[in-house]
């Protein structure tokens, strides 16, 4: 299972990429392989404020709906509109074209709560 070294991870299987004062968020390769066949993504609205661990997006497979959580406190600055017409990007390119939203973070120190690649690899075994 692909777990890139340069990303941070949440226990709920989101990956987090630092981009200056923002973070880009998606779901991990492990998460997409557990879900399989993503058929619908409900994106968060721009300017939405969220607390850490608040559900702000929904990813639906044929079988079930799963919440996606804000990894840290912040404000949504962008959501990946491409997923509306092509939700399968989450399966085919989870760390690239399949990103879900960009969050402007309130406090960069909050990122210290997240896991590094080694810790996430350990979590998924």
């Amino acid at each position: 299972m692909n777990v890139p070294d340069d990303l941070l991870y949440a226990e709920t299987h989101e990956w987090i990429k630092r981009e200056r004062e923002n973070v880009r968020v998606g779901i991990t390769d492990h998460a997409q392989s557990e879900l399989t066949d993503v058929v619908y993504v409900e994106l968060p609205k721009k300017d939405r404020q969220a607390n850490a661990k608040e559900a702000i997006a929904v990813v639906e497979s044929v079988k079930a709906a799963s919440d996606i959580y804000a990894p840290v406190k912040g404000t949504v600055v962008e959501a990946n509109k491409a997923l509306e017409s092509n939700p399968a990007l989450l399966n085919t390119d989870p760390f690239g074209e399949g990103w879900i939203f960009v969050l402007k973070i309130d406090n960069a120190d909050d990122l210290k709560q997240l896991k590094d690649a080694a810790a996430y690899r350990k979590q998924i075994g």
Partner: protein
Amino acid sequence: MSESAQKRTPLYDEHVRRGGKMIPFGGWLMPVQYNSIVEELRVVRNNVGMFDISHMGQLIVDGRSAREWLNKMLTNNIDKPDVGSGQYTFLLNEHAGIIDDLIGYRIGEEKFLLVVNASRTDEDFAWLDRHRSHDVDLRNRSAEFGGVAIQGPRVVDLFHRLLGDDVDLPARNQIVDFKLERMSLTIARTGYTGEDGVEVFFSASDAPKFWNLVLEKGERFGIKPCGLGARDTLRLEMCYPLNGSDLSPERNPIEAGLGSFVDLTKPDFIGREVLLRTKKDGPREKLVPFRMKDKGPPPRPHYLVFDNGERVGEVTSGTLSPSLNWGVGMAYVSTPHAKIGSKIDIEIRGQKFPATIEKKPLYKKS
């Protein structure tokens, strides 16, 4: 229930070996999928797929008055099938609530095989045993049997290769015994997918051998093992009900739109009085299929149904149909709102999405 308390079918190791994702279902650990629900669904619609149904229950009813007694226990008329055929039927409680939906096969003049839902096997047996007539023998033989459903348009080709070109499969709803490499197979032409297919039962100890033989012989026909996820999606596209979701002890067969499997001309069966009343007065709610008007989030069980802002029902099954590439489902809707073509709204995470009540089945083979 913890994973370790779940039962394993005789094919458990085969599923794990082939990468099946195991989940608890009706007290059993079953594969929900191998690689992809959508891929497995397409295999069944286009070629042929195989499902483990060893978790399903087998009850044998035998004895001088087996037929007469079963006709009092079940809704359909068990006098109708000849020896070697079966019928879909219901086991009801006194309020006409559905305990189980099942297929009853007549395997002798006064001998029947009831194939019942995994999660209801013990309850069905207890209910039947409690009402048992003294000259009827009832046995729960579920643990002795393994079973598979082999479904898809290439099933006949596959069985010619398996049993020989001169061997014909039984006709629809018929059941026949075969021998294959010292295995005793009971093959019924039935299924839960809307495709041509069979359900095959055999001794639990033969299960891995039969499973692997079918996969080997079926390779040239594109066979794949398929999980419960594909099975659930296939049946929903056909509007076949799932007990525990669309059927329950709080619902009767007329509300579920399955009155054709109830013979009200029979003089006496459990639930008959209530059903006569439901038929006369009309059911308060009806189970209807629906299709979402626009692309959007798929409907799911327990979402609420509205008509012009008024709450009129609840979804019992829903998904994105891979065959139609569209959100579909079934819902109990109050009868005045449950007409084919009626516009309804499905509430999904606080927002209403338009849908239309459709005719059965939702998926028609082109």
